[in-house]
């Protein structure tokens, strides 16, 4: 299963992922620039990504709790999601997303 991630510098990376993993974990384990400070506990918003427009319907909208957390980043767009809240499944094979500036490590 693959996902395609565009980093903050605009470079594309095709990453191998496993069903049931959080998208954040895949991006982090491949060493891309994602802070993911709280390790997926939905309490930091430093795993912020933009979902490619072709995928927003499949991925779905953030929960209310996730929306609250998104208040703590200054670069929210309509296709913003926190990648620790997206679980990889067959339906998401080929998922495309872009890392937000607010997800970068220092």
């Amino acid at each position, binding site marked *: 299963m693959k996902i395609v991630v565009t980093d903050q510098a605009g470079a594309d990376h095709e990453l191998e992922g496993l069903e049931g993993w959080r998208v954040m974990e895949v991006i982090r384990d491949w060493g891309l620039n994602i*802070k993911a*400070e*709280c390790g997926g*506990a939905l*309490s*930091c*918003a*430093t795993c912020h990504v933009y979902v490619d427009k072709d995928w927003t319907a499949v991925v779905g909208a953030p929960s209310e709790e996730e*929306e*609250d957390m*998104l*208040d*703590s*980043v*200054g*670069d*929210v767009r309509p296709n913003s999601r926190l990648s620790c809240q997206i679980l990889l499944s067959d339906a998401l094979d080929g998922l495309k997303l872009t890392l*937000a*500036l*607010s997800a970068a490590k*220092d």
Partner: protein
Amino acid sequence: MSTEITTDVVVIGAGPCGLFAAFELGLLDLKCHFIDILDRPGGQCTELYPEKPIYDIPGFPVVTGQQLTDNLMAQIAPFAPEFHFNRMVNSIEKQADGSFKLATDADEIFNAKVVVIAAGGGSFQPKRPPVNGIEAFENTSVFYSVRKMDDFRGQDVVIVGGGDSALDWTLSLQSIARSLTLVHRRAVFKAAPASVNKMQELAAEGKINFLTGQIASLDGENGQISHVHLTTDAGDLSLPATRLLPFFGLTMKLGPVADWGLELNDNTIVVDTEKFQTSVPGIFAIGDINSYPGKLKLILSGFHEAALMAQAAKAIVSPGERIVFQYTTSSTKLQKKLGVA
């Protein structure tokens, strides 16, 4: 003049590992002072996950971040450690007599025979919004906290955020600011409903301005902003502004730890696994901030590190004194220190 405090041990960071160190040090009669930039103990446990369950603390099938912190505070209470919150340790200098001088950003000096760095993932600092060039305005016209209300008197203030800090400062600064605009990305607020209602009343009376949107860029020169450009649902907008207060919560930054002349490895402090001492004798590092072969960033690892570190710290503070190994279960001496015998 700066305040000066002299003690056996200064612990930098009041996260779980630092807190437990006060217990192990206390059993050996060493007195601790804690310094933390947060306003309460617990580090990541209380800042990032107070209500979440932890399942791998030995002896506790389940305990939340807040409960663990409360329990640690109760456990170390007999040793009466002193806490200095809301300040950051900026520097550590080794003195000629082998002791250390620490300086905080609150203009205090601490003299200690031993320093324990339990700085975790670094100090919690305000999140900087992803706006180009914002650094150039920080601490002159862009602030992440209000230290002096007077800095905002007669100014055109823009506050960004939807939590309690943003709303509370909107309510407090509106009467002294020349103009005040609250900007939040949506009309839903996490802040206390009473403050939100009050803010909406003020907006209805025209005393403040509320806009839904986000900061796109800043204009200004010599550290002084002149305009804040916003993207809003109603299109782009430019606001004259002389003060900006973004409130986006906190994030961990390694911070000054990197400048203390200690051997580092990928943003962590290298220690040995006998004493958990850094490359500078007398400075120890425990918990998430340290690294050694096989390191696991778990609370229980930090507890073990604290126990071994304390033995080595004792040898520095009381050279030549024999350290007797004792159990808290059976030693009346230890029980006296704990106030139970």
